[in-house]
């Protein structure tokens, strides 16, 4: 999802809110009929109509013939309107009345009104591309507040239901909201719901209280209060994850293979379970996972059996003052898990913002009893530490960029081992985003005595002197053309247990895309040069050229790679690939096949299949369900996604290689299929009118 873009569902909701608000300023008027008589009803309203008849014996006035009653911000149209009461206690009634208010046109089976409010029953609503109904609607004439009862609205792309909705000022509050894009008979496939939702049109956000996503009957809690905007939608996740976690030969961490995990099985408010099975493929042992997770106030916990072993993690944080937090952690990660840790810790943090320097500062203290079982043997004892960190930055400037400096220091004592670890860290950096140019330069320096008896996964520090940089350019050099180029590098002056000293990364890549007659033709070059310029046996070094052609779901590609390191030098990839969609009744099948001709060119061997995969797209009333797998050069990925708008975006899950995000809700209309990203998952909710049979 492009930064700053508003997801379509949110956009639709905001349009709804804006229409509600804008309508208050300029309610559509029902035009007086030609030759209409006018009746002023105090300060309440003015009515125009063709005919009038009063009945003094019943204190009633009947208006009929193109009756149009106009009040402050609202109008009422009906064939017949009856006004009872000859004084301020008058009461208006109408059947089959049409009321316009705050951008809505409400057609009510019946209407009653007095000097304080309009009450509509069995209301059909339309306005600004939104249609729907409400059991009732009450317009408070003194406050201007509009209260809708039992709303059920739908636009071109979504359904919004609620027990009630209130419009006041620039805030629209929906009680018991439910949001879905499924236009189905029967229960929708997924639904975002909550105790209440507040649509803030001015801030372009929706604040959902006690929200949850329900997918196929499984509830995913969204927290006490969730602000839904372009960024926070990324935190939403489907409850179903299909994972493939291979073993990592470099770190020695065992993989779990193919797994299907129900990640958020709601059990009670704030408590959910994560259950599933891993090792479903033949290469890995079959294992189960059953974790209970919960959160209440500032305390969260995880307990249960993970593939690696038993796990108990508890963390409690309390804000004692606006600048001081404190709490305690308990972590039990049994052998079989990479951490192999048992620990209880008390911690406190004092923190403050430093606006003058556009930064912040914090001071942390920890007192822990820790036990760890690394390969070198068990170690246990107390940890008493104190650390501080600060960030200062220059003013962000579009021309000159921004300079930042992060500094930190820590001192930890290990009484049982009679050891002390100290560390001092500084990381100046420079960032510039100027049009198509993006530049980041950083230098990390860390001095430490590496005195911790524990491993780096807990608190052991290692010295570092690392310079890194990234330069990227992207833009459209001409209509129909897109180009991008990127250079990134990392140089470590000192080595440690995870990196060797020297040039560890120098990557140069570029691409040029031409959009022509429904096709996107892309030529690309990727040069990984660290292994060429500074070979050490592990570093990659190759040059790869690629040519890709996309037209909708049809994808063709060719790729050639000349490898310098590691291993023997020569052409190690000459691949052509194709993914061709085939429309079958009720499903679109897209097989993928990649064939590597490098063995043929190099040694006269038969071409090798370097990749294969299959995607199934099943249309539904919510969008398309996409299921697929891909094996590319032995790296397997599987995906399960819900494309809420055909050909646009998806809500779904994708499995990624170890260390990257595995589950996503992706929603950007222009997004490519779910992608793996280190450290997080891009996500969102997409709206879109979908056709097809209900799920």
């Amino acid at each position, binding site marked *: 999802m492009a930064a700053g873009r508003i997801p379509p569902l949110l956009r639709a909701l905001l349009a709804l809110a804006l229409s509600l608000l804008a309508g208050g300023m300029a309610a559509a008027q029902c035009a007086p009929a030609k*030759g*209409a008589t006018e*009746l002023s009803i105090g300060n309440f309203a003015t009515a125009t109509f063709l005919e*009038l008849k009063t*009945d003094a014996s019943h204190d009633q006035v009947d208006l009929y013939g193109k009756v149009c009653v106009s009040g402050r911000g609202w109008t009422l149209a009906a064939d017949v309107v009856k006004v009872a009461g*000859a004084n*301020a206690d*008058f009461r208006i009634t109408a059947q089959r009345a049409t009321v316009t208010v705050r951008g809505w046109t409400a057609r009510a089976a019946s209407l009653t009104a007095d000097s304080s409010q309009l009450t509509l029953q069995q209301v059909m609503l339309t306005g600004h591309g939104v249609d729907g109904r409400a059991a009732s609607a009450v317009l408070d004439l003194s406050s201007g507040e509009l209260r809708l009862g039992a709303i059920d609205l739908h636009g071109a792309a979504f359904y919004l239901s609620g027990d009630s909705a209130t419009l006041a000022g620039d805030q629209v509050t929906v009680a018991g909201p439910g949001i879905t894009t499924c236009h189905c008979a029967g229960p929708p496939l997924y639904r975002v719901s909550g105790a209440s939702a507040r649509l803030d049109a001015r801030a372009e956000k929706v604040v959902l209280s006690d929200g949850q996503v329900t997918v196929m009957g499984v509830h995913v809690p969204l927290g006490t209060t969730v602000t839904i905007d372009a960024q926070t939608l990324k935190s939403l996740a489907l409850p179903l994850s299909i994972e493939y976690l291979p073993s990592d030969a470099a770190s020695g961490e065992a993989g779990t293979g193919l797994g299907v995990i129900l990640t958020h099985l709601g059990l009670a408010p704030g408590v959910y379970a994560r259950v599933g099975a891993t090792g479903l493929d033949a290469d890995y042992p079959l294992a189960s996972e059953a974790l209970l997770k919960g959160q209440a106030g500032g305390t969260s916990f995880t307990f249960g059996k993970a593939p690696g072993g038993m796990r108990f993690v508890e963390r409690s944080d309390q804000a004692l003052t606006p600048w001081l937090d404190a709490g305690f952690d308990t972590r039990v990660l049994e052998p079989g898990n990479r951490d192999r840790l048992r620990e209880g810790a008390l911690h406190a943090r004092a923190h403050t913002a430093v606006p003058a320097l556009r930064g912040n500062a914090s001071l942390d203290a920890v007192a822990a009893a820790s036990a760890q079982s690394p390969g070198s043997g068990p170690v246990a004892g107390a940890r008493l530490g104190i650390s501080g960190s600060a960030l200062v930055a220059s003013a962000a400037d579009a021309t000159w960029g921004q300079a930042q400096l992060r500094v930190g220091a820590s001192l930890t004592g290990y009484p049982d081992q009679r050891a002390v670890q100290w560390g001092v860290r500084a990381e100046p950096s420079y960032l510039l985003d100027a049009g198509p140019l993006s530049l980041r330069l950083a230098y990390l320096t860390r001095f430490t005595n590496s005195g911790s008896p524990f491993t780096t996964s807990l608190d052991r520090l290692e010295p570092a002197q690392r310079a890194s940089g990234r330069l990227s350019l992207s833009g459209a050099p001409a209509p129909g053309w897109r180009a991008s180029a990127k250079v990134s590098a990392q140089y470590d002056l000192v080595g440690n247990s995870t990196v060797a000293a020297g040039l560890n990364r120098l990557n140069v890549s570029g691409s040029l895309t031409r959009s022509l007659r429904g096709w996107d033709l892309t030529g690309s070059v990727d040069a990984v040069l660290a292994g060429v310029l500074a070979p050490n046996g592990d570093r990659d070094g190759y040059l790869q050229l690629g040519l890709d052609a996309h037209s909708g779901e049809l994808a063709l590609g060719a790729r050639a790679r000349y490898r310098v390191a590691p291993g023997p030098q020569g052409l190690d990839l000459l691949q052509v690939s194709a993914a061709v969609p085939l429309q079958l009744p009720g499903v679109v099948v897209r097989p993928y096949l990649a064939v590597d001709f490098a063995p043929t060119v190099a040694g006269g061997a038969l071409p090798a299949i370097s990749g294969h995969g299959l995607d199934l797209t099943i249309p539904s009333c919510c969008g398309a369900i996409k299921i697929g797998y891909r094996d590319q050069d032995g790296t397997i990925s599987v995906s399960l996604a819900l494309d809420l708008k055909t050909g646009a975006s998806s809500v779904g899950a994708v499995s990624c290689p170890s260390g990257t995000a595995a589950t996503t809700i992706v929603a950007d209309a222009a997004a490519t299929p779910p992608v793996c990203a280190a450290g997080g998952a891009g996500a969102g909710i997409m709206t879109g009118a979908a056709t097809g049979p209900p799920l």
Partner: protein
Amino acid sequence: MLRALSVLAVGGLATIGLAGAASAPFAALTVTPAGSQSYDISTGITSLPQGGTIFDRDTGVSLEAKRITYVDGSYIDGETVTVTGAFGTLSADKLHIDVRGGALIASGHLTLTRGVLSLSAAKLHYDANRQVADFTGPVRGSSPDFSADRLLLDADSGNVLLLGDYRFSEGPFTLRAPEGGGRLELTLHQVDGAPVYDAATQIPAALLARFAHELN
């Protein structure tokens, strides 16, 4: 119609009579001068410079004026007049009664009070034969609160037809004529013993027929 006017002066009291026409309006008038009375034998005009009263025995119309001139069997002119009859109590600066035509024309500071109806107008033409009063404007009513370019009053039933650019107010309600003018019927009813008007924009055919002469 009045065919002859006989004058009998008895101590200042004159009786204007018309034999054989007792059923016609203004046909049996009794004139009571408030002061002197002169008769111009050449023109037949009788003048009451100090005014007086005229009473029509048949219709019950009573006229009191500060100055009266009349020609027996032809017309009566009055100044600063108060007329009480079936149409209500009328005050006007000037009054002309066409005895032969059975018409009453009044103008100048013209007001009418009739039951709950109280209005002022620029001019009144009252057809005593048909008992239709035609007020022309601007017509303003204080009870009920209304205004109109023209008002037709059925002196028999008390029903009213507002014409032209009218306005009618009662309580919080104010009714205004459509652009270009319209018609509003005010029908007199008794509700709990009190006379009230009902309003309607759709005019019954009977009322249109009643006012056909004035509307055509």
